[in-house]
């Protein structure tokens, strides 16, 4: 639900205050829930803070987990500007990783920078085309994008498994079928002075670029007009087809790049490990950020922190690993519920379309 009009100051306060309120409510509910398991809520909160943000180690742990989410969230956030709900980031992520690994193998022996650029291009292209397919099906065949993007996730995972265990398999990867390794020379390094790989920086930069694109270009403005009112957009003569294809391509390119980073900075090859659910968590991040590209950055860090703290909750408090899932679900529910508060805390502003 994009807002076309410039926001008054009150709306910005509101945009921060309401999610914060929802977050606190969710934490309270989660504390009560865990209290039933005999866990003291304050100990719980203290451990969560310690595990997610309590030390430099915890911060790095959090940021590294947030890195893929920054990009997979854009897969949902960008089409949302057009009023489309795309939830297929996981598929674009795994295919991006696979394409990047294939590119590195094909170019084996070339200069590292060239190979890395080719890997990024392959990841962007594979993910982009995959989700552009969702846009095309919507635009030219009227197929609902939510359902088609979800179906494409299953198909992408089957493709990954089929290729990694068949045509693209490294015969030396005996018990864990994988593509051949891309080679240490081509791996992405960490951000100097940290254990966080460059994927995090890429994610932040891409989110900022997406913000500029959506909020400060004609292309982005047109997309938001379509999202606001498709009929009006048609009357004005906006090229809806091109907008849909362009946005869905970019939406897929982002998680495709995240898949490339996963291969180039973490795994060093493509295999079934790519199917790790980053795409699904990205959906959550996008909704929590209300599909705002800059909002994604803090929300992804928050989600990274929740998952980073999960280990401590298991080890120190004996809570099941699913505790983090329950918390994420609760946060999501509370945030959606808090939508109702928007526009009620501050001065009335322009009516939305």
């Amino acid at each position: 639900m994009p807002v076309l009009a410039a926001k008054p100051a009150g709306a910005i306060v509101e945009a921060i205050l309401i999610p914060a309120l929802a977050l606190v409510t969710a934490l309270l509910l989660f504390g009560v829930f865990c209290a039933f398991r005999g866990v003291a809520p304050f100990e719980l909160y203290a451990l969560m803070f310690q595990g997610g943000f309590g030390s430099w180690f915890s911060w790095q742990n959090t940021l590294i987990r947030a890195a893929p989410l920054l990009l997979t969230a854009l897969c949902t956030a960008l089409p949302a500007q057009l009023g489309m709900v795309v939830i297929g980031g996981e598929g674009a992520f795994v295919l991006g990783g696979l394409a990047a690994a294939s590119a590195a193998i094909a170019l084996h022996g070339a200069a590292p920078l060239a190979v890395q650029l080719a890997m990024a291009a392959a990841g962007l292209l594979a993910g982009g085309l995959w989700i552009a397919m969702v846009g095309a099906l919507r635009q030219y065949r009227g197929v609902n994008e939510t359902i088609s993007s979800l179906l494409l996730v299953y198909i992408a995972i089957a493709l990954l498994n089929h290729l990694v265990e068949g045509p693209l398999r490294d015969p030396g990867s005996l018990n864990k079928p994988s593509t051949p390794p891309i080679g240490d020379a081509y791996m992405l390094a960490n951000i100097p002075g940290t254990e966080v790989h460059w994927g995090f920086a890429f994610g932040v930069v891409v989110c900022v670029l997406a913000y500029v694109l959506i909020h400060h270009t004609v292309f982005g403005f047109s997309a938001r007009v379509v999202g606001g009112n498709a009929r009006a957009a048609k009357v004005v003569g906006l090229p809806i087809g091109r907008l849909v294809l362009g946005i869905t391509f970019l939406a897929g390119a982002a998680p495709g790049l995240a898949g490339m980073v996963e291969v180039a900075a973490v795994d060093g090859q493509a295999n079934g490990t790519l199917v790790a659910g980053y795409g699904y968590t990205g959906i959550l991040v996008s909704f929590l950020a209300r599909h705002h590209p800059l909002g994604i950055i803090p929300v992804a860090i928050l989600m990274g922190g929740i998952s980073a703290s999960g280990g401590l909750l298991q080890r120190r408090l004996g809570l099941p690993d699913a505790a983090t899932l329950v918390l994420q679900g609760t946060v999501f529910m509370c945030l959606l519920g808090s939508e109702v508060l928007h526009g009620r805390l501050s001065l009335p502003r322009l009516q939305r379309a």
Partner: protein
Amino acid sequence: MTDVALGWWGVPLALLGGAIRASTPFLFVSLGECLTEKSGRINLGLEGILVMGAMSGYAISYLTGSPWLGVLVAGGVGALLGVLHAVICGLKRVNDIAVGIALMLFGIGLAFFLGKSFIQPAAPMLPSLDLGWWSGIAQVHAALQVNVLFIVGLLLAPAIAWGLRNTRWGLVLRMVGDSADAALAAGYSVNLVRLAATAAGGFLSGIGGSFLSLYYPGSWNERLSSGQGITAVALVIFARWQPMYCVYAALLFGAAGAIGPALQSVGVTSGYYLFNAAPYLLTLLIMAVTCSPKRALVGAPSELTISK
């Protein structure tokens, strides 16, 4: 009973058996979703309800010794989660697809959290009806071991179809789904009708989940569901919001799950990942062929977010 080798005849038999064994969760979830969507709202959280139903059904069956009570509780838990979905969606400006995704996460998390202590114990299972007594062939006999829930589902479909067409309730539901304004004008509370429809959908999905844990494959663990809840949402579109078509589509999806193993057992060994993905590809293709950008889908409730 005789033991005969069936060879290639085993494949259609396995598909039939698979359709009977594995279709029930698809059937219940899709019928439930059909009801919800007829009211003009989509509940994408059925996967969470399914998993929660599987867990709670198993737990209750283990604790009380009665699998049928487990089924009932699974339905009740599903209805409660459906109400939660409906209440949040009833708030202003809340997107039902987003709430569905949240519910999926919440339901799965809750089921895993509460279900830890029920992974190990063995709960009493639902009995099956022996509809293959007439056959001397052991495989046919086994394929026709039918669970009562499957039959209930088969009967439920025409009942829902009839109810939607011919009862006052059905009419109100469809009116809310097709034009909220008209329903308002006629004096019905749109939110209340949708709440009832979502709760009913949740009830059926919860039962579908209990089938997974209490009959087939028949145990509770964290990897029990292979996305049947999500698939069933696609299946409803595939079935054009017609309860009877939901039955055919559920049977097809159940059979499709059996095709990979069945082909391998007669010597077709390559490409099983692709066979496993076949139902998803098939759904996508059918949607691409039958949808049209120029008109809404025939049978689609026009208040539905996805058909707007």
